[in-house]
């Protein structure tokens, strides 16, 4: 059994996890915060991405749009991570063995790499194209990729609770590929 799975099993036995899982309102409040923070996090990020693609605020310098809006995006991101971590904490095993959750985490890392690469390459030379109504191709690609990542993240996140309709580690047999992707623990059966 993998270390991560054992860690999730242990997390699920902690009193905080059980309390959140069994709570009447707290879990739903955390979930609602997570969903509504989309407006702040993805909303402001999307405006920045659209500016990078040259699709909005063309007369405003790119660096101005970024410095004025990214603090709000960062605040949204913080709320997302905290509420998201709590949602994971409420049902660690269920999330760990959820294909959509796993895909969402991979996508999140890829989205992070996209942002990191942008800040360390294209954005380094922003002074050259700061005023351009339509930024250079590399910046447009980063903005477009980011928008695609948000779309994929939202879809995968929405799908997380629907996994049980299609596959579930606790209902075997499942196709081998599903067991591998979901990390189902089949060797004890």
């Amino acid at each position: 059994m993998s270390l991560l799975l054992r860690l999730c099993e242990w997390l699920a036995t902690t009193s905080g996890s059980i309390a959140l899982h069994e709570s009447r309102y707290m879990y739903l409040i955390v979930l609602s915060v997570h969903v509504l923070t989309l407006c702040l996090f993805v909303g402001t990020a999307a405006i920045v991405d659209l500016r990078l693609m040259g699709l909005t605020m063309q007369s405003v310098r790119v660096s101005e749009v970024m410095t004025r809006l990214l603090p709000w995006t960062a605040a949204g991101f913080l709320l997302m991570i905290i509420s998201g971590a709590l949602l994971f904490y409420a049902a660690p095993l269920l999330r760990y063995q959820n294909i959509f959750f796993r895909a969402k985490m991979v996508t999140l890392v890829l989205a992070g790499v996209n942002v990191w690469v942008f800040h360390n390459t294209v954005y380094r030379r922003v002074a050259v194209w700061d005023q351009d109504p339509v930024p250079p191709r590399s910046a447009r690609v980063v903005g477009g990729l980011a928008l695609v990542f948000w779309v994929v993240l939202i879809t995968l996140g929405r799908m997380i609770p629907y996994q049980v309709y299609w596959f579930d580690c606790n209902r075997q047999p499942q196709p081998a590929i599903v067991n591998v992707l979901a990390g189902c623990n089949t060797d004890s059966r």
Partner: protein
Amino acid sequence: MSLFEFCERVQYSPLLSAMRSSSWVFPLIASIHLMGLALIGGALLVVDLRLLGLGLRHQPVAQVARDAERWLLVSLLVLLPTGLLQFMCFAATKYYYLTAFWVKMAALSLALVFTFVVRRKVAMAEETRMNPVWSKLVALVSLSLWSTVAIAGRLIGLP
């Protein structure tokens, strides 16, 4: 035909029955609705923050409002059809009975009128003629109305 009969007729129409029988369609529509939620959040926030003297505060309000309006319309074009489809899927057995849904519809009507009539006028007005307290009030009303829409919408989805 009563409102309830209308909801029933919509929900049990062949197209909607077919949609309900698929386990993928509903969550996919809900996902697209959430993408619209994110976008409308951005399009509204940039203007309301600017009216509050935050965010893009070195740009003229009118310019921020004009730039954001296109994306506000795009987000509504995403939200309204996907919202309508979700309503149609369970019009008679769920939405008809849900107070949160009717609160959302009322708040949405108010928010749309306020945004495209009052806020638009204030945002496009010449800044020198605008009392900053008035601008801030408009931003706060806009944020409250749209928050009501969003929170009531979230309540619809709760078990």
